[in-house]
């Protein structure tokens, strides 16, 4: 059309707010996702600090039990949907076109839309803190009948979840279309970088399960406002059915948050081991098998809910099977380091931290899979320790590793290595002080989601809270390192990690990456 003057086709970005509001450039949108995610990381982190402050000592010192429940619920929703998922989408936006040799994402306007939904979704979600009755307080799992007791926050939360789901689905469609159509000529799927592979599979998971979440929260909504009885036993409904549908979404959701992390780690470890990834093809198959298994293990969240014997056996076995492809991944990363030539720049430190601590989360995962033991572990702090080990030194460390890995490529500047390494060591020490004692608390009998506890749990709660404050404060260093790097610093080369051996098309373009890259497809040999 003659009148269409496309900003994206200009050589230089638009100026001012227009650059961001009307952004169609994958780099701008990626930046917005990452900045949004960092803000949400601090918002959700503040909630965690409130939780740990209240749990520092037995007795209620700071908050009402109802507000405590609001904090645990909102902390989870903000961290899952606001921090971890947008961070990975941001990384995908920045890196997938650069790794594929594509000029942009395939659907740039949809890309703009899928980002700009998020600030509205989270404004809506966070505003529930100020409505009568307070924010949702039934846990992020929203089990009815409890969730049906919420006040005005209830429809707001559900609408916010719908918005987040729409955003995720659009983001996922964009990733799939880009990867399947816009790879540089001569790049077959199996030669594609592991980060793109992990995202391709994650995107399919998102498209498969986000509609399930949308459906189940809509059923909650009609139960609440339109007198249906999907989940209301008194009306012939079934509260357990909610849990089945929710976890059919919820378990793949867990992998949505960890598979891209696998991709990141598979990029970083070879670079700083100066050696190609060991068993790259089996790594891809491992991700695919984990993704498949994620659809048939949801029942392991519900063993104590009362389940037929055969179902318990099935879900136990299928869950334990996940350990096999996950084990292959850990062994392959270790084999990549073996007989390599290792250096320990910040991204590598975070990758190695991931390797150790994600594996600890994997061990407790296998323990939780065993039905009889699960009767003791589940709903206790042991579960809290387990999923935080997988998500914080797992997913979050991978995100931080990715940021430290590609930040010089994005900004053209090196960040302060000392600051980044300090950030790593403080984070690693405190994250263990924070979460390791929670294993003890859970085993000793402390349930999760309680604002106050019996006095024999005091010692480890104090230790855990000290770890939490330390971990929270350490993240300020992360923000400082990023801000400093954006504002200036030693100039980065095109290869950034010249001494190491980064492979991939993103290292063939200058740093910072020009506003338009790969306008002509690169040649691949």
């Amino acid at each position, binding site marked *: 059309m003659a009148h269409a003057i496309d900003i994206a086709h200009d050589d230089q970005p638009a100026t001012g707010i227009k650059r961001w509001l009307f952004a169609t450039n994958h780099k701008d949108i990626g930046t917005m996702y990452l900045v949004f995610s960092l803000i949400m990381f601090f918002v959700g982190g503040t909630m965690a600090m409130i939780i740990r402050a209240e749990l520092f000592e037995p007795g209620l010192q700071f908050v009402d039990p109802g507000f405590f429940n609001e904090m645990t619920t909102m902390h989870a929703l903000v961290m899952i949907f606001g921090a971890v998922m947008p961070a990975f989408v941001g990384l995908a936006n920045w890196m997938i076109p650069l790794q594929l040799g594509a000029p942009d994402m395939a659907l740039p306007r949809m890309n703009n839309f899928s980002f700009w939904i998020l600030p509205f979704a989270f404004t809506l979600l966070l505003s529930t803190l100020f409505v009568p009755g307070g924010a949702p307080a039934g846990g992020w799992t929203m089990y009815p009948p409890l969730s049906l007791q919420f006040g005005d926050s209830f429809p707001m939360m559900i609408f916010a979840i719908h918005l987040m789901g729409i955003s995720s689905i659009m983001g996922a469609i964009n990733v799939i279309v880009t990867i399947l159509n816009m790879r540089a000529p001569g790049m077959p799927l199996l030669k594609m970088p592991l980060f793109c592979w992990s995202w391709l599979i994650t995107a399919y998971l998102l498209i498969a399960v986000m509609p399930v979440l949308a459906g189940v929260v809509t059923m909650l909504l009609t139960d609440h406002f339109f007198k249906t009885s999907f989940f209301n036993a008194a009306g012939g409904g079934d509260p357990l059915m909610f849990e089945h549908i929710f976890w059919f979404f919820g378990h793949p959701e867990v992998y949505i948050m960890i598979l891209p992390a696998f991709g990141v780690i598979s990029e970083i470890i070879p670079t700083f081991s100066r050696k190609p990834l060991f068993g790259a093809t089996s790594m891809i198959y491992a991700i695919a098998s984990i993704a498949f298994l994620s659809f048939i293990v949801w029942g392991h969240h519900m063993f104590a809910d*009362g389940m037929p014997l055969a179902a318990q056996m099935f879900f136990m076995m299928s869950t334990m099977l996940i350990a096999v492809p996950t084990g292959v991944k850990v062994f392959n990363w270790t084999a990549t380091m073996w007989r390599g030539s290792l250096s320990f720049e910040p991204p590598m430190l975070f990758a190695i931290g991931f390797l150790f601590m994600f594996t600890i989360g994997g061990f407790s995962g296998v323990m939780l899979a065993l039905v*009889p033991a699960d009767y*003791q572990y589940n709903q206790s702090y042991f579960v809290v320790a387990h999923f935080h080990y997988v998500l914080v030194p797992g997913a979050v460390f991978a995100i931080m590793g990715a940021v430290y890995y590609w930040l010089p490529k994005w900004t053209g500047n090196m960040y302060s290595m000392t600051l980044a390494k300090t950030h790593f060591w403080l984070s690693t020490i405190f994250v263990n002080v924070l979460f390791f004692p929670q294993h003890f608390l859970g*085993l000793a009998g402390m349930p999760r*989601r309680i604002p106050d506890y019996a006095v024999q749990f005091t010692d480890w709660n104090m230790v855990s809270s000290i770890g939490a404050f330390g971990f929270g404060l350490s993240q300020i260093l992360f923000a400082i390192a990023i801000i400093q790097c954006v504002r200036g610093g030693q100039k980065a080369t095109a290869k950034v990690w010249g001494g190491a051996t980064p492979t991939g098309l993103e290292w063939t373009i200058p740093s910072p990456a020009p506003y338009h890259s790969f306008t002509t497809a690169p040649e691949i040999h």
Partner: protein
Amino acid sequence: MNVNRLTAIDDKPGRPRGLKLASIAIAIVGAIAAARSASANTSNGINLPRGVTVLSRDIYSLHMLVFWICVGIAVVVFGTMIVAMVKFRHSQGAIPDTTMVHSTKVEIVWTIIPVVILIVMAVPAALSILKIEDTRNSDLSIRVTGYQWKWQYQYMDAAAGINYFSTLSASSNFARQLHSGIDPRTVPHYLLSVDHPLVIPSGVKVRLLLTSADVIHAWWVPDFGMKRDAIPGFINEMWIKVLPGKEGVYRGQCAALCGRDHGFMPIVVDVKTPADFKKWVEDQKAALKQAQAAPAAPAAAASAPPRTAATLPLTAKL
């Protein structure tokens, strides 16, 4: 109240002299153990309790088996990673072996070994589930109903008619209020004591039928090895057989988020010998009869049937 404990530190005397550090360490452990003597269960504070039922012992052994297998795997895997980090350092001039990119043989081996290890874990687990799910042939059934935020216990079989509510004890309830000014450490069994505990006999199979009147709750006493959800519209089953000789008071909590006061609906179980339990049942029934016979009480009692028993002279506060 005597609580059975398996974790008593009883090796304090008889240490070789001169080992100052060791004795200090033991003193610290002793102090922690003493602090824990107020503890509600047989856990040592960092591990699962071995518990006092047939099932809890099975579950504990399974837990320890899996734990040590995980420790073994961790030593091998983390050991390899650490060796790699020490041995193959760029700063020490390590030359990367860039030809080492793939080995089908090795990959098959490290797929098969985990499968074998998983089978080793799955077999005892599966056998244990069969045992847990077998709720047949119970000697006593008790219906447990969760409410926001208390438990109701309705006895059946030989104890039919006994029926009462169990709520957080008043002393804990005062102390747990925001800015109460009461130090929880001064409250006996803070948050783990109730007005009327559940009373069960040892040595027999007690079946609990769990349901809920409002939202989902979960009944969990760690020393019994199990938790089960109490769900409105459903009846879940679990069984407890406390080993003879392990009579005492055991404590737990609601384990499923059930609203504002989820943290404040504890579970206390008083396990009596079968003879003592029989006597307790007779006392309760006698009191029940008396209450029904008394002319003044019925008006109030009849209007709220499930609550009648709450006025019974139950056992002393625990």
